[in-house]
């Protein structure tokens, strides 16, 4: 029996504002000092009036434009009513029937080798406020839960995809591309550990049987907090639904929509106690907040301010620097600062392929080992470019450049690393290539004179004999380029 997997993702992303969405409290992540970022508005005290944060609205518009959404000319705020201890007002301010944007898409790459891409539809993106945080003492005994309202009222953008995703891997790819886009746009830090990016997945199967497509009941998997868990949870859920179909034959409509959580330790999705009547939110327009009409001029201004998107940047870098799809993917997917670093280094040294090799190998390795971001990396792009420029200029060999690179890193904390430090290291370690071929030729002549046997062997047809001569010359002339030495020796022997 064969089936198609149908997945849609709901992503909540925290917008990068200073203050909350409807009040002036700080929106900073602060789990260690509970309840110090609240005021009458976000505590839901009677008489307090919310006012929309302009920056939150514009960041949301920017994101929607980048997701190719239609921007509504008129949008309003609605109250979504439910009781939960982390929701002090008894309702969440959200958007119901007039979201500020809808009908967009995000392109994802399905196959790095063929470059095959797919457009994943976006149903809508809307703004809402986040809730606070409940903390349960799992150790037992305690009868109360703690509530911290620091997070209550921080701005959230909810992005709802069409059920266009066809596998767990595709869902992960979509989420990764979305995260990359959001960080490129600087609208969110998308820190999944801190909950700035959260994901729910709606999953079901279309079973192909007797020429028909039979949909299984849709399940929503809540609170997936890492890319890995998104992929794992969906994989487990696909398997569970297929087994359930075989065992019960239940199809869409036979049971109410189910909400499940993911138990990463056991690798299974677990049914959550049904929130009875969960969908009865009784939305109505919030009378405290004025509706918004979005002027075309604002949309055009925001559109013209948008940065280059990751997908476009990959294409441009591949063409400009003649890099493979794989290389540009590694560079661009590391984030905007990494790609900026690459471009600065490539431009300064003029060799994109060389810069790419160093970034994707040496620098990535050092960043991982030292647990640094590219912004914290002590060798700046122009210094790296200076170092790389010395290789084609025949000042140092590629191998010596790596030695200098590691030495620069090991310098540690003594102020910013400058290009003059490279000169010092080259001098101290005697790495300078003997560029003066006159001096090199003198050394070669001397070595040839001292080794009549090797010379005779070579002339007698033993090519390998040249190795001993190269070794001696290299010892005498530190920093010489072995390839150059080899060529010069062979020339001398053939002419002599």
């Amino acid at each position, binding site marked *: 029996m064969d089936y198609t997997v149908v997945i849609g993702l709901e992503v909540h992303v925290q917008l990068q*504002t*200073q*203050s909350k969405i409807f*009040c*002036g*409290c*700080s929106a900073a992540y602060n789990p260690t*000092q*509970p*309840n*110090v*970022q*609240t*005021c*009458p508005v976000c*505590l839901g*005290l009677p008489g307090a009036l919310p*006012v*929309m*944060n*302009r*920056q*939150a*609205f514009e960041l949301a518009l920017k994101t929607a434009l980048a997701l190719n959404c239609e921007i509504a000319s008129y949008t*309003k705020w609605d109250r979504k*009513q*439910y*009781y*939960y*201890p982390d929701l002090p007002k008894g309702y969440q301010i959200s958007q119901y029937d007039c979201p500020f944007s809808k009908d967009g898409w995000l392109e994802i790459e399905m196959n790095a080798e063929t470059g095959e891409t797919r457009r994943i539809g976006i149903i809508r993106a809307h703004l809402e406020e986040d809730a606070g945080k*409940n*903390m*349960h003492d799992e150790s037992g005994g*305690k*009868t*109360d*839960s*703690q*509530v*911290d*309202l620091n997070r209550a009222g921080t701005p959230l953008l909810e992005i709802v995809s069409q059920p266009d995703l066809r596998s767990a891997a595709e869902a992960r790819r979509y989420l990764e591309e979305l995260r990359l886009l959001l960080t490129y746009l600087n609208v969110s830090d998308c820190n999944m550990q801190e909950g700035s990016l959260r994901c729910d997945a709606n999953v079901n199967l279309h079973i192909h049987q007797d020429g028909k497509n039979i949909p299984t009941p849709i399940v929503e998997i*809540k*609170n997936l907090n890492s890319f890995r868990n998104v992929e794992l949870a969906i994989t487990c859920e696909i398997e569970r639904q297929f087994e359930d179909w075989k065992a019960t034959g239940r199809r869409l409509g036979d049971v109410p929509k189910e909400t499940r*959580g993911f138990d990463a330790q056991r690798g299974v999705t677990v049914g*959550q*106690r049904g*929130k*009875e*009547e969960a969908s*009865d939110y*009784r939305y109505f*327009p919030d*009378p405290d*907040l*004025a*509706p*918004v*009409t979005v002027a075309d001029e604002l949309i055009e201004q925001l559109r013209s301010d948008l940065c280059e998107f990751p997908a476009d940047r990959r294409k441009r870098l591949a063409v400009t620097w003649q890099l493979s799809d794989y290389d540009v993917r590694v560079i661009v997917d590391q984030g905007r600062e990494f790609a900026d670093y690459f471009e600065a280094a490539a431009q300064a040294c003029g060799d994109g392929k060389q810069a790419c090799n160093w970034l994707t190998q040496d620098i990535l390795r050092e960043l991982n080992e030292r647990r640094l971001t590219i912004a914290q990396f002590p060798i700046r792009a122009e210094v790296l470019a200076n170092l790389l420029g010395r290789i084609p200029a025949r000042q140092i060999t590629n191998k010596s450049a790596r030695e200098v690179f590691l030495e620069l890193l090991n310098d540690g904390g003594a102020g910013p690393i400058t290009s003059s430090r490279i000169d010092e290291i080259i001098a101290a370690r005697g790495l300078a290539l003997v560029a003066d071929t006159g001096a090199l030729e003198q050394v070669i002549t001397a070595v040839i004179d001292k080794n009549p046997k090797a010379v005779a062997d070579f002339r007698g047809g033993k090519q390998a004999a040249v190795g001993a001569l190269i070794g001696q010359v290299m010892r005498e002339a530190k920093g010489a380029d072995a390839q150059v030495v080899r060529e010069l020796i062979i020339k001398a022997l053939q002419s002599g």
Partner: protein
Amino acid sequence: MPTQLTPAEVQHVAMLARLKLTPAEVADFASQLGRMLDYFQVLNEVDTEDVEPMSYAVEVRNVFREDVVQPSLPRAEALMNAPKTDGQCFLVPQILDGG
């Protein structure tokens, strides 16, 4: 004949509002809520053909504040009205269903 809600409808609304009602209260509210709905019936008689739906009472649009942090309440004041706290957090009866 005034509208009368069914006991099940009253129970449903009560559950959404987290209210526990006695059978006598359910009966009371069934007729009281029914009378409220009747008032809306009166509104429904108004001819609203060609009238745009209105979601806000006054003709105001685009009220924004700049993204500037203002001082928050000291924690003690934020917790002041809570029935139960531990000095740091609001305390509520243990939540069972997660989320």
